[in-house]
């Protein structure tokens, strides 16, 4: 059931996920489309997430946006420009590089997304640890996860090990840090993925619906209806967990399960690539070790994460 709608306010609205926005020419969503989108969301009882471009929107847009309860997703630059104080104006702030995140002031009550490629990620472990200690929540998004090699898996495993030590120290110091790569799995008791096409849809400036922003802002996507004729997601069952043979047999519940990367790498929205599976299992396994350590230090978690001997559920498909 669709519960959320992401509204891209401009063709150049920031990516807050794995995909790169290939659109470089500013084209704001027509004001009437924005109003119609909000009306649609109100009628369908959908929670709205507005995604902003790098430039400041005209006042009339902000007034329309303010007419409905919503969540803001803004690139760091514009989050600084909007509002009366230096650091305010967004529920979720997106850094498009780790370098940008390191050099910026952050708020302790805000969720931050850091989009980074693997090279910068592996080199920036300490920086991530520092940011983690300052913010409400940190979502790290690897923008080239589909290119991971065996060496990259080793580097990522090592990175997660060091980050988990930072998380542990924060817990011991009385904090409850939230890092999507490690702490989500400590708290989940079922799959919790992006929900594109299943619980979330996207409205683009062209007035059409897409399962997620990547299907509009990257090449090769397709629409799933429009404001005039309504939502029409063909084969919607394929976005559900029960129609994803690999994922329904998996307990890396923190996995992004990105349907866009799925389609890019395996040609099917319901099938993850080997790289996505291994990355998610490295996170899961590091979370398992972290959980054990936190429990021995007296932290009360109900969660159990069992030992497994594979990193890709595909390899044990004959046991399903």
């Amino acid at each position, binding site marked *: 059931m669709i519960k959320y709608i992401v509204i891209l306010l401009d063709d150049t609205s920031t990516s807050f996920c794995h995909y790169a926005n290939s659109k470089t020419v500013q084209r704001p969503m027509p004001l009437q489309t924005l109003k119609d989108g909000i009306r649609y969301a109100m009628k369908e009882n959908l929670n709205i997430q507005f995604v902003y471009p790098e430039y400041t929107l005209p006042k009339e847009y902000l007034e329309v946006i303010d007419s409905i309860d919503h969540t803001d997703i803004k690139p760091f630059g514009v989050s600084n420009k909007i509002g009366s104080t230096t650091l305010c104006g967004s529920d979720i702030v997106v850094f498009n590089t780790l370098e940008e995140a390191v050099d910026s002031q952050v708020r302790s009550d805000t969720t931050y997304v850091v989009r980074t490629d693997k090279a910068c990620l592996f080199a920036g472990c300490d920086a991530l640890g520092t940011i983690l200690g300052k913010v409400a929540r940190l979502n790290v998004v690897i923008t080239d996860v589909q290119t991971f090699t065996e060496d990259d898996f080793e580097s990522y495993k090592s990175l997660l090990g060091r980050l988990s030590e930072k998380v542990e120290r924060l817990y011991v110091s009385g904090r409850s840090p939230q890092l999507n790569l490690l702490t989500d799995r400590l708290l989940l008791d079922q799959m919790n993925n992006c929900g594109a096409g299943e619980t979330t849809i996207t409205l683009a400036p062209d007035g059409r619906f897409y399962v997620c922003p990547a299907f509009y802002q990257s090449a090769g996507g397709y629409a799933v209806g429009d404001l005039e004729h309504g939502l029409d997601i063909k*084969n919607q069952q394929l976005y559900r967990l029960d*129609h994803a043979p690999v994922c329904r047999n998996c307990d890396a519940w923190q996995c992004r399960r990105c349907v866009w990367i799925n389609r890019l790498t*395996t*040609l*099917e929205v*319901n099938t993850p690539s080997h790289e996505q599976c291994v990355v998610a299992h490295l996170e899961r396994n590091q979370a398992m070790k972290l959980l054990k350590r936190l429990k021995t230090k007296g932290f009360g978690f109900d969660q159990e994460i069992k030992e497994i001997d594979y990193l890709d559920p595909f390899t044990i*498909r004959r046991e399903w």
Partner: protein
Amino acid sequence: MSMIKEVSSDWERSYKSITFIVTKDCQLACKYCYLVGKNAKERMSWDVAKKTIDYILNNHSFFNEEAVVWDFIGGEPFLEIDLIDKICDYIKTEMFRLCHPWFDNYRFNFSTNGINYNSEKIQSFIKKNITHLSIGITIDGTKRKHDLNRIWKTEDMERGVVPNQSEEKGSYDDVVKNIPLWLEQFPGAGTKVTISSADIPYIKESVLHLYSLGIHEVNINCVFEDVWKEGDDELFENQLMDLADAIIDSGYYQDYACSFFTEHMGKPMDCQMDNQNWCGAGRMLAVDAEGNFYPCTRFAQYSLRSKKAWIIGNVRDGIDKNKLRPFLTLDRCTQSTQECIDCEVASGCAWCQGENYDAADTPTIYQRSTAICKMHKARVRANNYYWNKLYRKLEKEGEREAFENNKPKSNAPKC
């Protein structure tokens, strides 16, 4: 009958099927052919063929099946007999040189229209490879049934001009003349018959005609495409009932097989116990003239009406294993509609993964086409009739046990 049984051997349970699409050209222009992009230009080069063989034979850890079937299709594969001969010689010498486990555990397989079968080059090739060779000639039944669909291609057709029916030239006479030689060389061989809407009235006469030609195994199936008209299922059922009567009353059941009549079909299926995919796409490998790899030939562009080719790699970069994952995790229930899952006569209902992909609302192999539904149900009714009638007859004659112990076994290819 004994020859039909011999063809099924244990190693077939674990073999790799590798298909060379050596040409997309054919002398014929069969009306039901799913190859929508046939042409005379895309012919495989020796360089692509050699690179394919080298890639496969040097990656035994990935291609780790016990045995291999090297399959050649087109268009009409025998149009490229010189290339095929070179390919087969190279495969044999390389398997020997590499001490490859497939050495002596291989077969060359051909599906041909049979027109050039008696040519010197093809006969020479057959003699050279006879111990590791299977060839299927497609003959569709009686002359009127065969010539209804299997017509010669004309130059006008290549320019997109559709001929009048009176201008069409059937290929029956050009094929049937080669059947005796073929059966002499491959006595247990079966033929593959395809049924589309217009063919239904000729099913009975065609199967009996093929038996009369000495073909003991007739592998026959309805096309998977959405071609069926109102009332086709009833007509189909009546044809199969008449065929059942003829096979039983004339005693053909003892020595001949027709894949329409299969004992264990038409039963409900369980999503836990009986959930395997029907189709073997993804477990096979096809390569075309461009050197692109496909999960089966039906995913090459010349086979697809409305979707993009599903390319899983190429001879230069090898196979992209991520693109095989959807095929290797695909099960029956995940791709089926609830109606199919709940169907009381589900077993034996076939599908083609390529046609599913081509007909799907989105680019996916996870949406099962149900165009064949009413034809399957008609087949189930006729099949039930066949086995009830046959077993009653055998019981009355005290022959049931003997039949059960020695019944003809179909080698119908399950792709």
